[in-house]
């Protein structure tokens, strides 16, 4: 299995990629592209229970736990949100529960996407990050219980 790079290293790569863009349009063009490239979630996972529901767009997310690491898959009906979730997956999928729980995800601010963490766009990044950390916490606790 391919080694997952540490979170900080992937974040650094993303920040460097965004440093190439000097306009909002370019940044969003890139995010839209990421959204288009993210593999769609299998229809069987697009269930209400997998929805992270906000007031505007819908995000579906599923998590798996293998060999001490958490893997995420997600989809959205809005393409920019899908691009954002694709970046989160790139950073967090394949990491250990502890690493996911602890990371402040500094790259979001560094690439100028903090506005997506605002309350009005809570269906954007904020609830996705929360949900991913919740999954990580759940797997961690389950692990501890099972020894």
């Amino acid at each position, binding site marked *: 299995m391919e080694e997952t790079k540490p979170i900080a290293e992937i974040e650094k790569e993303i920040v460097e990629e965004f440093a190439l863009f000097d306009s909002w*349009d370019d940044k*969003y063009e890139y995010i*839209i592209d990421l959204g288009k490239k993210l593999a769609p979630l299998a229809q069987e996972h697009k269930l209400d229970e997998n929805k992270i529901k906000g*007031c*505007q767009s819908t995000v579906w997310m599923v998590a798996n736990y293998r060999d001490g690491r958490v893997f995420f898959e997600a989809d959205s009906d809005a*393409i*920019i*949100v899908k691009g954002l979730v694709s970046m989160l997956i790139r950073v967090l999928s394949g990491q250990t529960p502890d690493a996911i729980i602890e990371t402040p995800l500094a790259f979001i601010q560094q690439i100028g996407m903090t506005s997506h963490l605002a309350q009005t766009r809570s269906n954007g990044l904020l609830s996705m990050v929360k949900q991913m950390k919740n999954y990580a916490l759940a797997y961690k606790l389950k692990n501890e219980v099972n020894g």
Partner: protein
Amino acid sequence: MITETTIPSLDIAAIRRQFPVLQREVKGHPLVYLDNAATSQKPKVVIDALVDYYSGYNANIHRGIHTLAEEATAAFEATRDTVARFINAASREQIIFTRGTTESINLVAQTWGRQQVNKGDEIIISGMEHHSNIVPWQLLCLEKEAVLKVIPVLDNGELDMDAYKALLSPRTKIVSIVHVSNALGTVNPVKEIIDAAHRQGAVVMIDGAQSSVHLDIDVQVLDCDFFAMSAHKVYGPTGIGVLYGKKELLDAMPVFQGGGEMIKEVSFEGTTFNELPYKYEAGTPNIADTVAFKAALDFVTETGKDRMRQHEDQLLAYATDKLQQLPGLRIIGQAAEKISLVSFIIDGIHPQDIGILLDTQGIAVRTGHHCAQPLMHRFGIPGTVRASFAVYNTMEELDRLIAGLQRAIKLLA
């Protein structure tokens, strides 16, 4: 021979200069504010009125005998007179200050509604209501075991008036209807709705949140029993609005909230209530915003609602024409009579994506369900993009909207 009456047109550039926020930039572009149905921007006279009040004569009203209290009371009550004229109420006592349309509707549901609506009675609303004109009635129906009936919306965004007439029955207690839809722009035939309800003995409440800034409102001609509006959609401050009611209804209704201002005499054995309008205005009101509300209404009256409407209708016609030429764009709400607002979707593109990309170009629109989820459901869409216009918007701004949309479509498609 010239028989047309032409309304002199407005100097829009001069009007724009009265709105400080319109001078700002967003994300490196001059702001294009097209979210006026959510809240309009404020002219300098309104902002000045707030500052003048706090710097010149801030005092609690009605009780003090000192000069400041007298000045504050006079300014506060002058707004009541101005509102009464603005909607042509028969008397100033029929103007109750509330926090806005939402509170006005809740006030009626919880006072008149609790007193008059009983088990099995019927309340009629429509399928294009704002949540503010749905939930208060749902709560009342739940409490009273009354029945909520909904007038269907036709494909073009107009109400199904035949269905409405069929819904009316001797059990109908109240019909509460939006005058102008915030999501579609439809102007509803409220006069016809009111007359039909009255023939059945039902009272009618009109949600005037959107209509009050665009249409001439005459509550006596309409003959509505209640009318609600919010100052912030009429170039005024947030946190202040109006409930108009017919006098005999307001007199007979039980009080809403208890506290200061609304009482005549209080003892532990019992309390007698103040007369109209104070009976419904418990506690220290929102004095500053009420005072500034007058400046907003004066701005509208002096600018001239007919001239504003003429300009806004031109914006609507231009926007509708240009938007329809964009590939895959569908306008939701094509009623014969509309105010200056266009709600639309673009095939295969989520409204939120469009909103985010327009924002990067300094263009503010609203995306989403516009607090009218049942209506979005009716059209089978998650939401729309809504561009809503005010007197200060220009054709050049609409061109920027169209260019912004073309860019967004190119990126997203």
